[in-house]
Structure formats: structure tokens, C-alpha cells
């Protein structure tokens, strides 16, 4: 199900839920809808009314996080980010035909070429963790843009902190 249909369904359910508190007639309708969807999923049929979450867009799933942030001039993956990296690694290990690009970046401080090397080191740090989880080297491509592709254009820590990053990209998704 694409995300718009999901929103529509959620919206519909929500409106039923609100209406439910006032009349018993609506309660019956809601129960009917829920039973329908349960029937559908039991039968295994792929249906627009079936609720399925795409792990990459489900905010509660670590796969939905695709940016890892770093401290200034550092390239170690922080402990708090390991779960996200591991989740992507497991996905890749389970899906050997899927390839990713790890795109490394740095904030504007320091020289341009030093920052290209720093961005590359960051991407390699993420890559190393993934390789240890059984991801194949051929599934990972690494590119660093240094300070050339900031997401925030400011000249202070609030901009710098979001520019020091590795992006996990799934070309083709």
C-alpha cells in the first residue's frame, strides 16, 4: 500500500473513532471495517485496505533513519547510532541483491580536501560496521562530498552539526 492510501485509511479510521464516542450506529460500522481487514489479511490477499508498514517509512523502525551524525573532526559512529547501522546491515545481509551508497559529508570548517577525506572516513566507519554484520563489500559504494553538499547553509554549530553526516542511500528505492 502506498503511503497516501495508508493516510487515507488512517484518516478514515480516526474519523470513525471520533464518531464512535457519540453513536452506537457508528460503532457497528467500525467493527465491521476492522473485521473486514482482518479477514483480508488472513486470506493473504494484497488489498488496499490491508494495513502494512513499510519499515523504511515507519518512524518506529530504525530503517527509517538514514542519516548518521558525527562530532566535529571525528569519524567514529556513536554508540546511540549503532542500532540504526545494524538494522540497515541486517537488511542488506538478508537482501544480497540490494546495494547502498554511503555518502560522507563534513561541516565547512577546515580545508575542502581535508573535509573530503573526513567525509570518506565517516562513510568507511559506517561501512566497516556493516561488513562485520555480513554485508558484502560489493553491496556498498562509498562517496564523500566533504563540505560541498551541506544541508544547512549557516555558519554556526546549528548548521555545522547537521552537515557532519553520512547518508545511507538506496538508489532505486
Amino acid at each position, binding site marked *: 500500500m502506498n503511503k497516501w492510501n495508508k493516510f487515507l485509511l488512517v484518516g478514515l479510521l480516526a474519523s470513525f473513532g471520533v464518531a464512535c464516542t457519540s453513536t452506537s450506529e457508528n460503532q457497528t460500522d467500525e467493527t465491521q471495517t476492522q473485521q473486514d481487514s482482518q479477514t483480508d489479511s488472513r486470506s493473504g490477499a494484497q488489498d488496499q485496505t490491508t494495513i502494512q508498514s513499510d519499515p523504511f517509512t515507519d518512524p518506529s523502525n530504525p530503517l527509517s533513519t538514514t542519516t548518521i551524525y558525527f562530532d566535529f573532526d571525528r569519524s567514529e559512529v556513536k554508540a546511540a547510532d549503532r542500532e540504526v547501522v545494524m538494522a540497515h546491515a541486517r537488511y542488506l545481509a538478508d537482501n544480497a541483491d540490494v546495494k547502498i551508497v554511503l555518502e560522507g559529508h563534513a561541516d565547512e570548517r577546515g580545508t*575542502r580536501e581535508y573535509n*573530503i577525506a*573526513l567525509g570518506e572516513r565517516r562513510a568507511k566507519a559506517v561501512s566497516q560496521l556493516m561488513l562485520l554484520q555480513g554485508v558484502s563489500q560489493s553491496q556498498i559504494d562509498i562517496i564523500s562530498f566533504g563540505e560541498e553538499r551541506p544541508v544547512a547553509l549557516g555558519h554556526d554549530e546549528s548548521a555545522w552539526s547537521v552537515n557532519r553526516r553520512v547518508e545511507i542511500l538506496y538508489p532505486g528505492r
Partner: protein
Amino acid sequence: MMLKKIKLNLLIIFLCLSVVSVPARASLTIDITLWLDNATPIAIVPFGWKGVGKAPMKMTDVISNDLSRSGRFAPMKENEMIEIPHEGRDVNFATWRNLNMKYVVIGKIQMQARNSYQVQFQLFDVEKGSQMAGHSFQAKENQLRRLSHHISDLIYEAITGERGAFDTYLAYITVSRNKKGQNRYRLAISDSDGYNEQILFESSMPIVRPVWSPDGQRLAYVSYASGRPQIYIQNVFTKNTQQLTNFKGSNLSPAWSPDGRHMAMSLSKDGNSELYIMDLNSRRLSRVTRSYGADLEPAWFPDGKSLVFTSDRGGRAQLYRIEVNERGATGRAQRITFDGVENLRPSVSPDGKRIALVHNAGGQYRIAILDLESEQLSLLTDGQLDESPGFAPNGSMLIYASQARGKGVLAAVATDGRASHKMRFTSGDVREPAWSPYKQD
């Protein structure tokens, strides 16, 4: 090692001169900041004109501008000149002495035929009351601007004893952004005063690190056009381009050997960024460094026997020196910077005695010069994020990249700290400057 800040004299007069933009020719506009004490007063008298219609250009504007930018001269204001001689016999030394001028330059432009001009100038020492230099030239109209720079060089050399660097090029990268927020990168060259910009290469992907070949014919640079950073060489006149590297990883920091036959570079194909030397004829690669840190930004010493480079093998980025031949390292890397938090991006002076670098102390990135004999580090600039220092071929000026009001600008500073000027790109950022060698024609 002592850290010394260049002493700035308290009596400072700021002059902000905006060079009048000649339509469609000056993409970089210049603001000059002058330290006027110690600058030699010189009168550059507007040249006489003999010909049909108006004079083709005001050569003395270019000459005054050049000499001001060096920081060594304070050209007299035209409206204060009470005499405007064009012939040697009309120069009244007493007048100029009373105006406190040390030198006077006079000249003439004469039209000889269609698009053919004779240009003459004379330089006089006011104190001695004698001529120091005098030259005559033949030029077409489109050569007059370059001739003005050449005359500046001759005046500069006659007075200071040092070769001028006005008849040179700058290479740089400009970046502009379209309405969709997409960047447009351009590799360009211009005259040393920002005029006559020529675009050599354009891309939607980043371009960094243009460097001139020793013969001034080619630029090497790093471009992401193929998808990852690779090194290219482009002939500045024919625009012919060849791709020099095709390795995986990041291929960065091209640096021409002084004899033009080798290119040092930083490649991460074998793990992390290491230095290599490539023979430009055979394309054979020799490895120079093997360290756990990133080794980058090599620069050659003029004898071609050692490199200075940036490495963070010791934790944070510092500068190291290593002896090399064409087959690789002939000794171990020695650390040469010890002050501040980080030192990066070395550039060696033409005489090999000084290194310009980016110095980080307390989060501020500034240009500094390391004197190799005294081991003293002197701060030269005061920006927040100054980088990419490069010497003019006479070693007296340094060009670098800076920020002004949130935009990338180029700046140049006399290496004795006496004067500085900034060059802004009219429609975006300008960065990564490289000063050409002396022209060979």
C-alpha cells in the same frame, strides 16, 4: 616555536576603492584596503594621447591599481596633480618634490595606424632628478590592458629591485545557485586584477583545487563530473582536457613537480588518503606515504626533492615534510608545525624559505606564514574561515579564500602584512584561488 602576530601600525588610513566595472569584463570587483604609512608616494600622471577620437583606454588607472595592490606604493590622486607632463623635458622636479612625491611616471599613447598604438613611458626619481627607466612599445588595442600590467611590473622592479607579478593570471572556482537551489561550478581564469575572466570548465558537480603547471600552460584540478573526485589536466589556451586518474576512492590534491614532469597527489584507493607521485609521461604511480592518518595537500619545494603535506597521523591535522625522488619517499616524514590546534594546506614560497598555511587556533581558521629558518609562525589574516593560500610568483603577495557577509570571496595580502584587498564575484561565491607563474610569452 614562537607565534608572532604581524605588527600593525596604529596610524591606519582605510581607503575603499571600488574598481569601476568595465561592462561585461570584470566579474570580480575589488575593494582595496591600504596601509598608507610606509607606502611610497608615486605620481602616475595620466598618459598623453595623440590620435583620432578618444584614447582607447586609461592605462594609468590599471597601473595605479596594480601598484596600490602591492601595498608598497601610494599613488597620488589625479585631481591633486598641478602639472600633467607628457614629455621628459616638461617634468619639473621641484613641483613633485613639493607634493612629497618620491617617483613620477609619465607616458604617451600614439595612434599609428588602425588598431596600432605606440606606448611610451618614463619613470623618474624625484629626489635625484633623473630618469630611472624608459620604454617604448607597439601594441594592438586588445593588448593595451596587458601592456599596462607589464609597465606596472617594470616600474615595480625598477624601484624595489624585485620582479613584479602584475602581468599574471589568477585561477579560481566560482559557484552560483539557480532558483531550484542547484549549484553551478565554474573553473575560470582572469588577469591578476580580476579582469578578463575566461571560463574553462563548467559543471553541476563540485570542482576543487585548481593548480597551475610550472610553465603556466595548464591547470590540474579535481572534479566530481564522473561521479567521484578525479584529477584532470586542462590546457588553458586550447581547453584540451585529459583525465589523469580513474582510481576508486577520493583522488585529490594534484601538485605539479617543479620540472613539470610529475604530479604528487593524494589517493585513498589503498585504504585511507596517502600520497603518491605519478610520472606524467608513463602514468606510473609511486607511493610516498603509508600511515594510519589521512595524508593530503602535498606541495613541492623548489628543488623538487621534498614535499610538505597535511597529515592527521598524530591526531589532528599538522604539516609534515618528507624527502622524495620520483620513485617515492627517501626518508621519513618530519613534523614541522607545533603551534595551534591544526595546521593545514601548505603552500611553499617561490624561494622555498617560507610556507603559507591554514592555522586553526580556538576555532578560527586564518592564514599564517611559517619561516623555515627561524621556525616562527606569523599570522597574516583575521577571518573566521580563511583557506587556500597561494604565493604570487614573486613571493610578495599571497592570495587566499575568505568569507565576507556570508559569501565566499578571494583576498590578497602583501606577505609583509602591509596591504590587503578582497575580490568579490558578482553573482555567487568565489573560492580556491591559484596565482599563475610568470607568463612565458
